């Protein structure tokens, strides 16, 4: 029995940004390879400048790909036409970090949410309104939210709206780019639970990009650690977190302080006494 085809297969991906006159281009991704199965979550963890968000942008079609391949459900995305990329947004969606900036402040929520439905010809008029209302309910907001504006909502509520926008076209893959990083702990827990619940119900896959080791361990089946445009280490989440092989991964894990004061005191003692 052959292994089922992965939903997303990124091979030797190189993304390079021009930096202007006489400066060498920036290799934001330098030969990155990852795979993500259906209904699974692949965590991409790293610090700022590691290229983790660039990988998400490349999958979404927002990054200048220099070489390599991105296969989605067997289809090559590198070199796909703009029209095809647009069609693929039905299958590949995104949730951004900043829920304050990712919603147009001048448009009521209902309009923002019905845009993807109209763009893909999935529903119009009353049918679209009905579907928007159903999704507002799924993400835990009241149906009258459709008439209100982003400024009427808190950060956590806006992130719920962003989740509804990403999932109401029922995509196969959602890129979560630091989707909970701007949220408080108690709200973050609500949103993580919502994402897990939706995954269980819809079988959606997440490319979960974050800098937070605790969050990525909680959400992911596999984790890839990135540093300076390279994958340092990749494997099952438990292994990466509890028995990392790369020095960088270990440094990253140790740098994040434990909330347990006794554990943390022990760690500090170990680190600072030679």
């Amino acid at each position, binding site marked *: 029995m052959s292994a089922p085809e992965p939903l997303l297969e990124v091979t030797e991906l190189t993304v390079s940004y021009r930096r202007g006159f006489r400066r060498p281009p920036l290799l934001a991704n330098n030969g990155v390879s990852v795979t993500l199965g259906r209904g699974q979550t692949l965590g991409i963890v790293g610090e700022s400048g590691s290229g983790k968000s660039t990988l998400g942008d490349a999958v979404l079609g927002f990054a200048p790909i220099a070489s390599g391949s991105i296969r989605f459900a067997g289809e090559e995305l590198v070199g796909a036409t703009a029209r095809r990329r647009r069609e693929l947004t039905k299958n590949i969606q995104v949730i951004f970090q900043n829920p304050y*900036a990712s919603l147009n402040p*001048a448009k009521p929520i209902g309009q923002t949410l019905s845009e993807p439905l109209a763009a893909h010809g999935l529903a119009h008029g009353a049918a679209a309104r009905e579907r928007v209302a159903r999704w507002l309910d799924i993400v835990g907001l009241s149906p009258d939210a459709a008439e209100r504006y982003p400024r009427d909502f808190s950060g956590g509520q806006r992130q719920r709206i962003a989740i509804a926008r990403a999932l109401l076209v029922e995509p196969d893959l959602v890129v979560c780019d630091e989707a909970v990083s701007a949220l408080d702990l108690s709200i973050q827990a609500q949103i993580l639970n919502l994402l897990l619940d939706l995954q269980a119900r819809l079988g959606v896959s997440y490319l979960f990009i974050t800098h937070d080791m*605790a969050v990525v361990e909680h959400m992911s089946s596999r984790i890839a650690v990135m540093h300076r445009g390279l994958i340092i280490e990749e494997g099952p989440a438990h292994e990466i977190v509890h028995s990392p092989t790369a020095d960088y991964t270990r440094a990253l894990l140790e740098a994040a302080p434990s909330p347990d004061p006794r554990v943390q005191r022990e760690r500090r003692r170990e680190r600072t006494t030679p």
Partner: protein
Amino acid sequence: MNSARRYLRKPIAVVALVIFLGIVLACVLADVIAPYDPIAQDLLAANSLPSAAHPLGADTLGRDLLSRLLFGGRVTLSGSLIAVVVFIGLGVPLGMLAGYVRGGLDLVLTKVVEVLFAVPVIIILLVVLSVFSQNLAAAMVTLGVLGFGGLFRVVRATTIAASGELYVKAAKASGLNHGAVLWRHILPNLWGPVIVQVSLFAASAVLVESGLAFLGFSVKAPDPSWGSMISDASQALTRYPWLLVPPGVTIAIVVLCLGLIGDGVRDAVSREGGRERASGTRSTALPARAVPPVQSKALLSVRDLSVGYGSGADATVVVRNVNLDVMRGEAVGIVGESGSGKTVTARALIGLLGDGGRILGGSVSFDGANLGRLSRSAFARLRGAGIGFIPQEPMNTLDPVFTIGSQLREVVRRHDRSGKAATQARARELLELVGLPDADTVLRKYPHELSGGMAQRVGIALALAGRPKLLIADEPTTALDVTVQQQILDLLVELRARFGMALVLVTHDWGVLADVCDRAVVMYAGEVVEQAVVDDLYTLPLHPYTRALIAANPHGAQPGVALPSIPGQVPAPTAWPAGCHFSNRCPMAVDACRTGPIPMAEPQPGRESRCIRVDELELAL
């Protein structure tokens, strides 16, 4: 339309709009309302001043000035309209295209516009008019073409800015095509700037038309236009100066009105956008409470601190009755979520509340001196008396136009009143203290040349300049990567050990709290809800909120399993429940929790919890 309502609230702009529309309407209806034919001569009335028969007087040939003004306005205004239509028709689409597509097209269009800016407008207009004799329309089209560059640049810049917005990226990711993105998400951003540009250009078009008419290029005599009326008047300027007044004043009024309309629109739209709606305010009487006596042994002892925003009876209380003691050399963490009041509390301690923030009550003693009732000025004195402050984003608090050296030396001079050499030596010493060994290089750098971690070290050096006994740090590592955070926390721990400084650390991160602090003060919705040594707090939290918050941390939770989350969200200061502020989210809340303010309980020596069911919490676990 919020911006329309905001425009209507500006009386000057409304008056300008009404006058302008009135003039336009009068010109349009000239056939109906003009008392005479504009070219009919009444030589008996020639050069007359205003009278019942001729409300604005009559010119040298006895033609009624009001009638000429109304009919002449048609020529002037329609000419200006042609120029404006061309101006918008070229400027908006080309500007959007250049700003959205960028690349080669943008480069070409931008260069073309730059060339247009270098073209002498009046000379070209005169050339056009010499080819198309007396053809005002051709001249005005030319004016629009030559002038659209200004609008193009504004539209292009606005489009580029809007294209960078995350919601535009999100719309593209939703599958909208370029047309829909431009139409729905970018065009709405353009209205304000475009209307401002158009009003200014329309004003100059009126002036250009008048100028051309004055030179005799606009209409054939005897037909009127505002410019030709001025031309006629100038012939008899010394004998009959009144003739100049009606057309001159009309042109001035129209130009002025257009300018004021543009101003009003700019003000109306500049405040538009996703700003938070000002929340309603309410006055909250501060309930009288038993306040524990000031701790005489403490370095800093704050009693009954309350902070509000707004003034008088409308003040919204955001921090209520906070008691805080910091012992010498002790590290106290203030931990909580957004809206808990932790940052406001820390900022109040150094008298750095933002706009409208006020200390409503409380008292403080520091280092053995009772400073009495709290006020901004009392805290300002505290800053000099040994409290250093480390801000969250050091990059924003450093002045970008001065070197690190000059900013650090300024602070050192203020504290030490030292000479040049001593100041420089102290600045170098401070940088070495915070782990920037190549001090001379750093002193010469500008803030933008530093990394985030280096900038935070400089921020700490600035805080250390006054040899403080207490450092207050407001989320000092939140903006940093985790490995850089570790270095900064190491530095704070080391500095404390070396100088025996006390530390008040505001954070939302339980890991940072556990790493650096001895004791923690947990805040929720403007109140301290629990206070304990960090070990006790983590092993046995004695407030339902603390317990729920620790449980919601994914650290150490079972992967993939739902986290125990707290339903709802932190209430805004105007919506605090009457009783316990946490009662509407608390799984243990009973009726007694909702009736009145909850007193602080002392379940164990040295521990505090603002919960009436604290005994049950002690048993459960």
